């Protein structure tokens, strides 16, 4: 009895279907709890006023945008090393969610920057790297759509994801270098306010909400991908849900 039996799309499909609603509910509960703590319990920040409350969505989204890319890169390595389909399908399922998280991070970051530091976009290291991360996500999705053969697309996107993953630290370092040179001194523009522990708690709970949400969406998407790519095989034809459709 090992977990490897679930590496076949046919075996993973029902498991994903079973797990997705649980993660969705967990995400919803964590979001409610996190927002309750963040808006209802956490005090007003001394320097930033109520505007700081944006961090409860901005920081989790930014963390997820990076975490999802790392997970995508992991599954890409597995897909190339073991030539498995499901790992490539998982990477394929994660990319859009990662892009959405990156977009949310950028948008909320801009709206946080305006009242706090006077500008929507400040070319600071983190936001600029986040923008490039969005382009990396778009690139993976675009390459997937541009190659017709699914297995070839799997491998090409895997290589691209891995090359991108190697580059992300380099990109971040270079942007930070550029930014500190042109900033001159001091101000770290996206430093969160010195955190009362209750703010940290709310942020952590919201991070779990974002994490569970991403898992739920990725599981539903990978189910769709499995059906799209495995249709015509006997196990798909035998699915009871489809026979009712």
């Amino acid at each position, binding site marked *: 009895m090992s977990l490897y039996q679930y590496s076949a799309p046919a075996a993973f499909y029902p498991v994903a279907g079973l797990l997705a609603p649980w993660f969705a509910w967990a995400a919803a509960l964590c979001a409610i709890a996190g927002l309750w703590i963040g808006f209802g319990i956490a005090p007003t920040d001394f320097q930033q006023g109520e505007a700081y409350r944006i961090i409860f969505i901005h920081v989790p989204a930014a963390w997820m945008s990076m975490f999802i890319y790392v997970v995508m890169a992991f599954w890409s390595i597995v897909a190339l090393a073991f030539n498995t389909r499901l790992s490539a399908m998982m990477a394929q399922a994660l990319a859009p969610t990662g892009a959405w998280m990156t977009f949310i991070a950028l948008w909320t970051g801009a709206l946080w920057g305006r009242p706090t530091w006077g500008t929507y976009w400040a070319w600071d290291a983190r936001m600029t790297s986040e923008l*490039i991360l969005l*382009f*990396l996500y*778009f*690139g993976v999705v*675009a*390459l997937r759509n*541009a*190659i*017709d053969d699914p*297995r*070839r697309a799997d*491998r*090409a996107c895997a*290589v*691209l994801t*891995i*090359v*991108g993953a*190697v*580059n992300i630290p*380099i*990109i971040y*370092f*270079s*942007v930070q*270098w*550029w930014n500190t*040179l042109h900033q001159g001194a001091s101000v770290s523009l996206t430093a969160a306010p010195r955190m009362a522990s209750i703010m940290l708690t709310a942020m952590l709970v919201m991070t779990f909400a974002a994490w569970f949400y991403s898992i739920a969406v990725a599981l539903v998407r990978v189910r769709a991908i499995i059906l799209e790519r495995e249709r015509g095989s006997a196990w798909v034809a035998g699915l009871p849900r489809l026979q009712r459709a």
Partner: protein
Amino acid sequence: MSTAMALAEHDAQYGVVAALRWSTARDLRLAMRSRSELAVQLLFYVIVVSLFPLAATPDRVILQALGPGVLWVAALLASLLSLPRLFASDFADGTLEQIALSPYPLPALMTGKVIAHWLTTGLPLAVLAPVLGLQYGLEPEVVTLLVLSLLLGTPILSFLGAIGAALTLGARGGGSLLALLVLPLYVPVLIFGAGTADAMRAGLSAAPNLSLLGAGLLIALVGAPFATAASVRIALD
């Protein structure tokens, strides 16, 4: 003959150095046959560089500040334009498949292609830069550093671009897809490349930028050919 001698002879015939020599020579020969294509790329570079002052301002001070950045961005764009040329014709007529099947080590063949690409794209850009620097009123020291940064940086562009060119072989979307894939990877090269001349203008030492470019070149030299070879094999499947 003994095993050692046989291996040595095989290496001499099909080893890394032989592969580099063969691949570079072949690609250079092919490039020389369509010299006009190369000239057009350089003209594109010249025109793009000339457009910025027209769009912005002829103010000398502003142009001096923008100059290195503009020349670098134009180098990026010119590099992107020339990348499809790396594999397109070989892929179309089946030569690339033969190349992949040959006894030469594929990563070495890729490096040879990149060297030939740089000699026909990046190197001319670096040579042209001083002339174009005149348009931006750049001082001699700035121009020297700019050329140095281009000499170090454009090979990196070729190495990274080759990965993108191989990945997009046989994919729809052509040049724009290639640009989307490759430009984020180019960002660090752009930052450190343009930053070299900018550092000098700001009165700081340009050494860190140049060192980082050199390091980047070494990393690209060691890593990129393998990623390119893998991508070519994927495209040929």
